[in-house]
Structures are given as C-alpha cells and as structure tokens.
C-alpha cells in the first residue's frame, strides 16, 4: 500500500523545482550541432555548460573516400581520408561527458556513376562498407545517422516528387548500413529516415514508401526527423496537411511510423529530432520564416518541454551554436544560441535550463 505524501515532503520538492531552473541542466536528450573549435579554442566547454548530451557531426562519404578503396571495410585503406575534427570531437566529448553522433551522407563519384554527391550510390553495399569502416575507425561512436534529409532533392537523388522511387532507394541504403553497423556492434544505434518538416517527398509519403524490394520496411533503431516549424510547438495543434510534420505534428508522425515501420524488439521506434532551430532577426536564405529573439526563446522552451516529458523522443538536436557570419545581401541565417560574435541570445539560457 502506498503511503500518502506528507505536506513537508511536497514543500521540499517544490522548493527543489523552483531552484532548478537557475542551473544548467545536463540532459542526454539535448543534442547540438556546432563547431568543434573557434580560433583554436575548443567549444566543448560551452557545450558542457549548456548541458548537452550529444554532439552531432556530418561525415561526408564523398570527402572521406574521394577514390574507391581497395578494401572498403578497412578504415586503414589508403583511399580513406578521415577528418581530424572527428577525432578531436570524440576526444573532447569524452573529456566533457558528451557522446558524438555521426551522420554518414553524400556519395563519392566513383560510387554513384560519376554524378554529384547527392546522387545515391548505385550499390547499397558500397555505402554499407563505408559505414563498417567508419564504425571501426570510431569505435566510441554509437549513434549513426544515415544520410541527412533524403526527402529533399538537394540532398538525395533520384527523388521525383510524389513518388516512392527515392524512399525505396534510400530504404536499401539504410538497411544495408544497419546490417553493417549492427554486425560491428549491437550497441550501435542506427537512425533512419532523417526527413524534415516538408520536402520534395513529404515525411508521410516517405515513411509509407520506405520499402525494400521484398516489401518489408528497412531496419532502424530510431527514426530521425527535423521538425522545423513556423508555429509555437504544441502537440495539441492540428496537422499541417500534405503529409508534412513540424514539431506540433510529432504525435501524428509517430503514428505514421507505428503504422508503417513496425517496432524494434517489441518497442515503438523512438524519435531522434536531429535538427531544430528557429532563425531570428530578419529574413534569411535558408528558411521562409524568422522570429524575433524572444519568440525563439519561448518556442525553444516549449520544444524542450515536450522533449523532456515525452519518452518517445530520444533527443532534440539544436542547429547550431552560433549565428551565421554576416553576408553582403544580409540574408545570413541567425540560427544560433549565440550571435556570430559570441553574445548570448535569450534562447541560450533556455537551452541551458532545458
């Protein structure tokens, strides 16, 4: 039989809660994109200050393997050029208690028939071999994102609009990578999908169309989605329509995943919100919306609250730490928690307390 809580105990809890927001809150659910160093100074102390649990980094296959490796599964193959920045990030992350997540993306010309890097590799096994080499090169990394926003033609081709062609192609790549990464270590977590709010193929159609030649969906541990939004995050809000899904539609997105992608070891697939930001101050060249800094802080607070309370969300990744440097046309994206000169925006403290 449960004992009733005493009033004294309740007061103590209340006081503890009131005191908490003043401090940085570490959370393994908080992820971030940003530079590893600025002017030779590690940025990881800032990430630690923000209470970040996961540091995210993109590893371009086209850059790492510009020529075909003779032994593609071996990270010591002479063709591979592993960036030192990743070693630095892993080292610094270890020092500050921050895990590193790697996004494997973009194909070299030798793998996709001599096309530009957004074109998918002809053979999923080539990508799988690269994933195997990367996981051997970085054994401490456990979180692997497979491609970034493959629902956008700028990032992934072939991707005819309103068709299943692209998602099917992606599914084969994802499943091959899953097999390869899991063979290396069962502790590796593979993040698939990695769609975003809209897309040339909407998230809903993408999820529905991700099918292997035999008809089954590809394997993954987490579903990645970038829920950019021009609305204040609140799950009670109605869906955007068109098969789109912003932050407020994450419950709807979870339903699509359940219906189409099944479960992982009997559990529903959790959401890895790989990228999220709210650009501030003025119009920019990347998003068709912007908000002022106070709104950025308020909406981020709402997003972090949902992330914290909903166990279905594995992590929320903020992109990025700094605003972009100014451009001549004035359309730089002020997406950061800090201005490009390093001043804190209101959202910094919100993220810190998140």
């Amino acid at each position: 039989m449960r004992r009733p809580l005493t009033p004294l105990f309740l007061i103590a809890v209340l006081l503890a809660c009131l005191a908490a927001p003043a401090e940085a809150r570490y959370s393994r659910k908080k992820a971030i994109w940003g530079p590893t160093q600025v002017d030779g100074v590690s940025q990881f102390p800032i990430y630690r200050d923000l209470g970040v649990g996961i540091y995210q980094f993109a590893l371009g296959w086209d850059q790492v393997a510009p020529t075909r490796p003779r032994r593609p599964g071996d990270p010591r193959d002479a063709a591979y050029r592993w960036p030192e920045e990743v070693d630095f990030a892993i080292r610094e992350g270890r020092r500050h208690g921050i895990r590193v997540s790697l996004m494997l993306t973009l194909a070299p010309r030798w793998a996709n028939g001599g096309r530009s890097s957004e074109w998918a590799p002809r053979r999923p096994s080539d990508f799988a071999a690269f994933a195997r080499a990367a996981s051997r090169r970085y054994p401490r990394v456990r979180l692997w994102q497979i491609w970034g926003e493959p629902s956008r033609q700028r990032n992934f081709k072939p991707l005819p609009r309103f068709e299943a062609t692209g998602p099917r192609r992606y599914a084969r790549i994802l499943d091959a990578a899953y097999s390869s990464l899991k063979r290396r270590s069962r502790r590796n977590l593979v993040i698939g999908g990695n769609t975003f709010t809209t897309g040339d193929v909407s998230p809903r159609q993408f999820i529905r169309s991700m099918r292997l030649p035999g008809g089954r969906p590809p394997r993954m541990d987490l579903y990645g989605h970038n829920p950019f939004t021009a609305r204040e995050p609140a799950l009670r809000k109605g869906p955007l329509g068109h098969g789109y899904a912003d932050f407020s539609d994450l419950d709807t997105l979870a339903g699509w995943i359940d219906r189409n992608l099944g479960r992982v070891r009997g559990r529903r697939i959790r959401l890895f919100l790989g990228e999220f930001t709210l650009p501030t101050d003025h119009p920019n060249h990347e998003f068709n919306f912007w908000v002022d800094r106070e709104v950025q802080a308020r909406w981020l607070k709402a997003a972090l609250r949902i992330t914290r309370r909903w166990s279905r969300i594995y992590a929320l990744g903020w992109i990025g730490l700094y605003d972009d440097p100014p451009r001549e046309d004035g359309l730089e994206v002020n997406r950061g928690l800090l201005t490009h000169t390093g001043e804190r925006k209101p959202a910094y403290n919100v993220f810190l307390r998140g």
Partner: protein
Amino acid sequence: MLPVAWIVIGTVAAPAATPVRGLSDDLAFTDSRPGPRALAFREARRAGARIVRITLDWSLVAPAGPVKPPGFDAADPADPGYRWGYVEDAVRDAARRRLRIVLLIVRAPAWAEGPNRPADAPPGSWLPDPTELGAFVRAAARRFSGFFPDPKTPGDGLTEAGGSLPRVRFWQIWDHPNGGATLQPADAAIEHYRRMLDSASRAVKRVAGENTVVAGATPRAGGIPALVFWRRLLSAPARFDVAAYSGAPSTSHGLGNLAPLRALRGVLEPRKPVWLTDLGWATPPQDPRGVTPDRQARLLTEALFRADRAGAEVVVWNGLQDRTSHLPGFPSIASGLFFNSADDLARDPAKPALGVFRFPFLARRDRPGVRAWGIAPRPRGRVSVERRVASRWRRVRFVRASRSGEFVAKVRRGRGRIYRARQGSAVSLPWRSN
C-alpha cells in the same frame, strides 16, 4: 416456443471473399454542378457502394491537337497543360463519402495515337502510345498520390493547414480492350495492350507499391472473345494486379454474359483477383426494349450471387440514375438504380434494384431444405431469414453476418416459397425459391 419448422438445420460458412459493391456513373459522378454531384456520391454510399469507378478521359485532361505541345511535360502532374478539374472534383467528393476510387483511363489524345487512324476508328482508340500512356498515368498517379496540394484549399501546409487531393489506389487501364472498338487495330490489340499495361503498371507502382492496376474489363463477346483474349494475353508476362471482366449484357436479357466468369479464374495463373464490372440491365422508360424493373432486380441478385460464387472481389454496377447523355464518349444510362423523372436524385423514385443492391438476398432449393444467401447492410450483425406463410412473414432462423456482411443459412422447407431477410429495419426484397 418456436414451431418445429423453424428449427435451425445448420449454418454454412460464408466464403472468405464477398464481392464489394461498386458503382460507375460518369454522368452523375462527373456532373459539373457541385450539388447534384455531391448528392450522387451520397446516394451511392447509401446504396451500399464502397467503390466508385470514374472515367479519367486522357483526351480531355491532356492538351488537344495532333502534335504534342512543345515544353509539355506529360509526367508532371503540375504541368499547366493538364486540365484535371472535373476528375479532381469527382475524386474529392467521392473521398468525402469514404468511397474508394477506381480511375478508368481511356481514350488517347490525337497526338498520342498511332499514325494513319482510319476514319471509322473512334478517336483515341488507334494504337495509343504506351510510353505516352505511361507518362500520363504517372502524372495522374502522382496527382492522386494523396500528397499533391489541392488547388482548391488555400493553406500552404506551413503556417496554415493545407489540404491534399485524395489518394487513388485503383487504376484501370483501358476499357473493353478486346471489344474491337476502344483499342484498334483489333488484330494487334493484345500485344499492344500488353505494352500499355507494362508501361502504365510501372508508372503507378513508382508512385506507391500498393497501387493496383486493373486490366481488361473484357466483355464476353466482341472483336476477341474474353477467354481467348486472356489466354493470349497471359501467354507472355503481363503486368497487372486485377483482371476485370465486363458483365455488360449485349442483346441478352439474361445472365449468359456471366458464364465465362468462373472459367476466367482458371485461366489466370498465377491467381489474380477478378472483378466484375459494367454490370447493368437497362429498363424502360429510358430503354423501351429493356427488361422490367422487377426483372432487373432479380438479375442483379443472381449476378451478385454468381459473382460471389466465382470469387469476384468487386462487382461494379453501371448506373446510379437513368440519364440521357449529350457528351461524346459518355453514353446514356438506362440501367440506373433510380428512375429519372425530375432529374433530381433526391426526389426521383428508386427502382427495385436499389433495394437489391443495398441488401441482396436469395433463397434456393438445396435438398432437403432451402439455402438462403445474402449480404447484409451491417457486417457482423444478426440477420433473420423470414418466410411468407399465409400473407404473414415468419422468422425461420437467425444467422450472424460475416465481417463482410455475407450470410449463408440452410433452413428446412415448409409451407410457402417466398423468403426475405431482415436486419434491424433493413429488409431485403422478397425472393421466391425454386
């Protein structure tokens, strides 16, 4: 206490596949007046239809003219050369009534036909270019993928909720390809149709793997008899998911046209689902030489029963309401479930066939008793089978309808040969057993 005659003899399990009832009526479903069009779909749903077939006339939607317009991208659903309006209106209204949609693609535009069309060949029938057909089908399947922004909803899907055009899963490629009229020349029809199916199937499957390609709608007779057509078509690989057989009566007032339906199942290897389409017997006054409305109702009952026994998954009746057509390519309808005296579906009287369509039921002698069969309006609900004795209806047994609404029951013979079924307030038409 129930009399002995009402004792249940036993139930017979209903077969797994019960035909889903569908309706086709281009005059009603593509009516340019929004009110009557919406009413038509409402009445279709109330009549028990769960599928509607709508004609997507390629020659009406694509640009006209003998030459393909320069810059026209036939595979792009948003190309300004396309005029999807009437199809979108129909699809939108059908989806609003939760009706599944079959789009029937027919008639090539002049620029997509083969060269030197004879004067006696109907427009759109002469060697339609399979590649161009594939591009058109791809555009249509993308347009109705369920994700294409609906031009009639204002939201952009970013700051304001936006609506998409409904999804269409079923795509019928041509109609009566063996009939000798819609696909010419007849002597090359089978090989040409195979190429058309191949191209169209690849196109719709690119959009969604679950999309279903319906082939044929072959009438029994015509340029090439239906079974001959299917045997030859299947002598080499042909890409389709469903074989449709047209039950359209020719000169016959009976059920003779349905005879090959069961045989068709044997021809299809590997086994594919069969649909029965174009079912419909004309009645007066629209067709003075047609069968009586009572006869039409009885034929419909028999046809549904035969389709069920033959394993047809879908039965499409041709005609919601009688109407005279003035549109080329859209024939008049005399086999409607409603008469047309006021040109208003809300006020026009129903034919007896409407009752059959909604609640088909028949009772047949099956020694030593009678076997009753029907499809109840409410799946899994209880159905009572009644017999008329001395001008009163008496319940002879209860049976529970299957998940699809179908029920089969054996009852002991007794006085009276007229039976009916009842489910709540829904009552089937009486049926005189043999």
